[in-house]
C-alpha cells in the first residue's frame, strides 16, 4: 500500500527521465551493448568488422563511395565515433575556405576523417595522420590506400601524439602547420595544443579544428582556449555523429600569435 503510492507518485519523474534522455539511452545501446554482442559472437574487433564491410561494399579508388559506405555502416549496423556526414560537411567547408598545404591530424582511428580531409586538399598539399593504436593504424592504412591516396598525399604516423609533436620539426621537416584536426582522446586535447604552441609550428592564421568538444566534451581544452587569448575561437554547433538528439560541437580556433 505505502510502497505502491510512493512508486506511483515517482512514476512521472521516471517517465520524464527516460523520455528526455532517450537519445543517450539509444546511444548507449548502440555503442556499448550491440558492440559487446558482436564482439562475443564474431570474435573480430569493431574496426575489423568495419573494414570488412567497407571492403565488400565500397568502390575502390573512390573516396566518396568509401565515406558513404562507412556512414551507412555506422548508422545502420554499429556505432563508431567518426566525424560523421554533418560535421564532415562543416569541416569540408572550412578546408575549402583555407586551402591548407600542410595538415596534421591527431587520431585517425579508422581513417574516415583522413580520407575526408585528403579528399578536400588542394594539389601539392600533404596530410600527416597520427594514430596511437597499432591495430587501428593498420586498418586505417588499408582504408586510405583503398581510397586511392598514395604516400605523397597522406602519411600515417603510428605513435602517441605527445611523442610525435615535439619531433615533427626535426624528423619530418615541417615548418608550419596550416590546419590541425584533433579527434583523439579528449583529455589529450589541451596538452597537445600546448605542445603545438610550444613547438612553434602554429603560425598566424593556422586553423585548429577540435571535434566533440561538447559531447563527450573537453572542458579543460575550452577553458585553456578562452583564457590564453591566443586564438579567435568559434564553436560550430551540430549534432553528434549518427544520432539525432544529442548536441555536440566542433571548436574552430584561428591562431593569432602572441600580442
Amino acid at each position, binding site marked *: *500500500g*505505502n510502497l505502491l*503510492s*510512493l512508486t*506511483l*507518485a*515517482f512514476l*512521472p*519523474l521516471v*517517465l*520524464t527521465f527516460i*523520455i*528526455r*534522455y532517450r537519445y*543517450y539511452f539509444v546511444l548507449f545501446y548502440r555503442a556499448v551493448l550491440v558492440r559487446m554482442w558482436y564482439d562475443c559472437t564474431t570474435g573480430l574487433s569493431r574496426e575489423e568488422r568495419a573494414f570488412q564491410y567497407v571492403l565488400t561494399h565500397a568502390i575502390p579508388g573512390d573516396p566518396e563511395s568509401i565515406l558513404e559506405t562507412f556512414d551507412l555502416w555506422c548508422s545502420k549496423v554499429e556505432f563508431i565515433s567518426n566525424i560523421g556526414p554533418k560535421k564532415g560537411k562543416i569541416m569540408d567547408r572550412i578546408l575549402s*575556405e583555407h586551402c591548407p598545404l600542410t595538415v596534421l591530424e591527431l587520431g585517425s582511428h579508422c581513417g574516415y576523417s583522413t580520407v575526408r580531409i585528403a579528399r578536400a586538399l588542394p594539389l601539392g598539399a600533404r596530410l600527416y595522420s597520427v594514430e596511437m593504436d597499432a591495430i587501428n593504424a593498420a586498418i586505417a592504412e588499408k582504408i586510405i590506400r583503398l581510397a586511392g591516396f598514395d604516400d605523397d598525399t597522406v602519411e600515417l604516423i603510428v605513435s602517441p601524439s605527445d611523442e610525435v609533436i615535439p619531433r615533427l620539426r626535426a624528423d619530418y621537416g615541417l615548418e608550419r602547420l596550416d590546419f590541425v584536426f584533433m579527434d583523439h582522446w579528449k583529455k589529450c586535447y589541451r596538452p597537445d595544443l600546448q605542445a603545438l604552441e610550444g613547438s612553434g609550428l602554429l603560425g598566424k592564421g593556422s586553423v585548429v579544428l577540435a571535434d566533440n568538444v*561538447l*559531447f*563527450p*566534451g*573537453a*572542458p579543460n581544452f575550452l577553458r585553456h582556449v578562452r583564457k590564453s587569448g591566443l586564438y*579567435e*575561437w*568559434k*564553436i560550430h554547433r551540430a549534432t553528434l555523429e549518427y544520432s539525432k538528439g*544529442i548536441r555536440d560541437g566542433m571548436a*574552430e580556433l*584561428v591562431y593569432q600569435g602572441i600580442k
Partner: protein
Amino acid sequence: EKVGEEKPEVLSPEELEKLKEEVDERKKLISTLRGKPWPMRKKLESHEFVEKYEGALGKGKSRKLYAYKVMMLKKWMKFQRDFENFKTACVPWEMKIKEIESKYVSYLFLLYPCTVLLVLPGCLLFFNLAEKALMGRPYGSMPRKTVPRADEANAMDFAVLWDFGGYAQYSVLFYGYYNSQRAIGWLKFRMPLSYFLVGVGTVAYSYMVVIRTMARNANEDGGGDNNSFNFSWKMFTSWDYLIGNPETADNKFASITTSFKEAILEEQESRKDDNIHLTRFLRVLANFLVLCCLAGSGYLIYFVVRRSQKFALEGLESHSWWERNEVNMVMSLLGMFCPMLFDVISALENYHPRIALQWQLGRIFALFLGNLYTFIIALMDEINLKREEEEVLKLNMTIWEASLYNGTLGVNSTAPPITVHPADIPRGPCWETMVGQEFVRLIVSDTMTTYITLLIGDFLRAVLVRFLNYCWCWDLEAGFPSYSEFDVSGNVLGLIFNQGMIWMGAFYAPCLPALNVLRLHVSMYLQCWAVMCCNVPQERVFKASGSNNFYMAMLLVILFLSTLPAIYTIVTIPPSFDCGPFSGKSRMFDVIQETLESDFPAWFGKVFSYASNPGLVLPFLLLMVLAIYYLQSTSKSYKQANLELKKKLQTVSRTINKVLTLIQHLLYSLFMSSYLSSPLGGEHRAHQGKSNHQIPPSATSPPAPRGHRIPGPLPGNQWQPAPSVQRVPNSQRH
C-alpha cells in the same frame, strides 16, 4: 486723449489669436525647461523663478487662487514621488531583484502588488490582537480555548505540534479558539462581526487590487500587429540593455542567432504546408497523453485520500509518518513531477515556443486545479463526518450535564452551579478547525517540498557537477546533467497557486496569511541565493505573452476558484455549536442580521431588506451585464481604429522612404556627373578606365560567419565615394 472712435480695450479676433499663440509658446518653453542641457543648479534656479511668477499668468482676482492651486498640485506630485520611493525602499529585496534581473532578464519575480501581501495578514492579525488585548479571555478560561484533559499528556510533543494538534490547535491560529460573545471588553468590540467582515473584506480587496493591476497593465500594452516587419523588428530591437553579466550576454547572443534561424525556418515552412495531417495527429496524441496523465494523478489522489480516511477511522497514532501525511506528500510530489512530463510530451506538438509555453501553463493549471478540488471534495466528506459526530455529542452532553448534578435537584431549583475545570468538559469536534488544520498542513508540506527540491535538485546537483567534472568521462556541465535552469514561468505559477491556497484557508485559519508572508520572505532569499549560485539562465528567453496580463488573468481565475469553496461552506454549512466566533448560530452570515437588528436604527434594517430583495437585485445584475457588453464592444472598435491608424502611418512612412531614396539617387548621380565633368575630374577620367566600376576588393569575399572574430568590412557598400585613383605608373599607359 481720445484717438478717434475706436475702443482700444477690445481686441480684434486676429490679435486674440496672436496673443493665444504667444501664451502657448511661452507655456511650452516653460515646460521644456526640464529637458534643457543646463547644469542642475541653473535648472533649479529657473524652476524657482518660474514658480514664483507663475501665478502672474492667472488673471485678476483669481490670480491668488490659481497660484495656490498650482502650488498644491506640485506638492501633491512631490508627495506621490516620495511615497513611491518609500514604498520601493520598504521592499527589502529591491537591489537583489535588480541584480538577478541583470542575469536573468525578462519580466520577473512577479512581485504582484506587495500591498496585497501586506494588507491581508495585516487585517487578519488585527483582530487577533483585538481578541487578546481588548480583553478576550486568555487560554484556559473557556473550554474552547483549552486542551482537553485526555490530550494533555502529549500536547507539547513536537510531532503533535508539527501536525498542528495539541497546543497549536487551541491557539489563535485556528477558528475554534475565538469567542462567540457578541461584544468583548470595554470597547464593546464586535468580535464575530469583525471576523466575518474582515474575511469577506480581504476577498473583496484582493479582487480590486488584481483587477486594478490588470487595467493598468492593459493601458501600457499597445495593440500590436506582430506580423509585419518581423525581421526588422528582430534586427533592431532584440538586444536587451539590462544585461550586466557576460554569461547572460553570451546566451542572449546565441538566442538572438537562434531566433533569426527560427524565423527564417518559419518563413520557409509557412510557404509550404506539407504533412499537416501528421502534425495534427501528433497534437491530438499529445493531448490524449496529457489527459491520461491528469486522470492518473486525479485517481492517485483519490486513492490516497480514501486510504487516509480509513486510517483516520482507525486512529492516527497507530500509523507511520508517511501514512499520516500521505495525501499532502503525494499532492506535492505530483505537482512537481507532472509538469516535467507535460514539458517532455509537448515536444511532440511542434508549436511555436510562445504557444507551447501557454499550453504548458494551461496544463499545469488544470493539474493543480484537479488536485486541489479532489482535496476539497475529500475535505467535504470529512466535514460531514464531523457534523454527524457533533449530533451524537450534543445528545451525550445533556446526559453528561445531568450526571453532574446526579439527579439531586429538581427542574426549578436554583442550586449553586458546580464548577468544572474547562479541560474536563467534553467538547464537540470542530470542523472549521479541522479544515484550517488541513490547509496549514498542506501549505507546510508544500513549503518543505519546495525547499528540499531546491536543495537537492539545484544545490546538490550543482555541487556534484562542479566537483565530479574533474574526474568524469564526459563533460558534466555541457551534457547531462548540467546545472539546472531557472524556470521562470513554473515558479510564478507556483507562487500563484500558493496564494490560491492561502485565500481558501484564510477564513478558517486566520494566521495563515502571516505565516505565508514569513514563508515567502524565506523563500525569496533562498531562491535569490540559489539562482545566483546554482542556476543558469534558460537558453531561449521568451515571454508567455506580450503583456504581463497573462499571469494577472491567471491570478484572477485562481482567486475566483479558490474563494468559491470557502464561500460555499460559509453559506451552506451550519457552524459548530461550541467553537468559533459563530457558535450557536444557524448560519455564519446570521451575524450580519443580528448586527442590523441590534446595533442600527430600525429604518436602516428596512432599507437593507428592500435593497436585498431579489426583485431589485436581478434587474441590477442585468444592467451590469449589459454595461459590460457595451464597454467591451466599444473597446474592440477602438482597438480596430488604432490598428488602422498604425497601418496608415506605415504606408505614409514607406512613401516618404521611397521619396528620400529617390532624392539620394538623384543627388548621387548629380555629384558624379559634376565630378566627372569638372576640369579636375577630366584628367583622371583617362586613368579611370578599368578601375571605374571596381568595387574595392575587400568587399568581394563573402562575409565569414560572425563568431567571436573581429568583424570585417561591410560588403557591398555602394555609397562609397568614387574609388581613388590607382597609382598606375604612367609608363604602362603609353
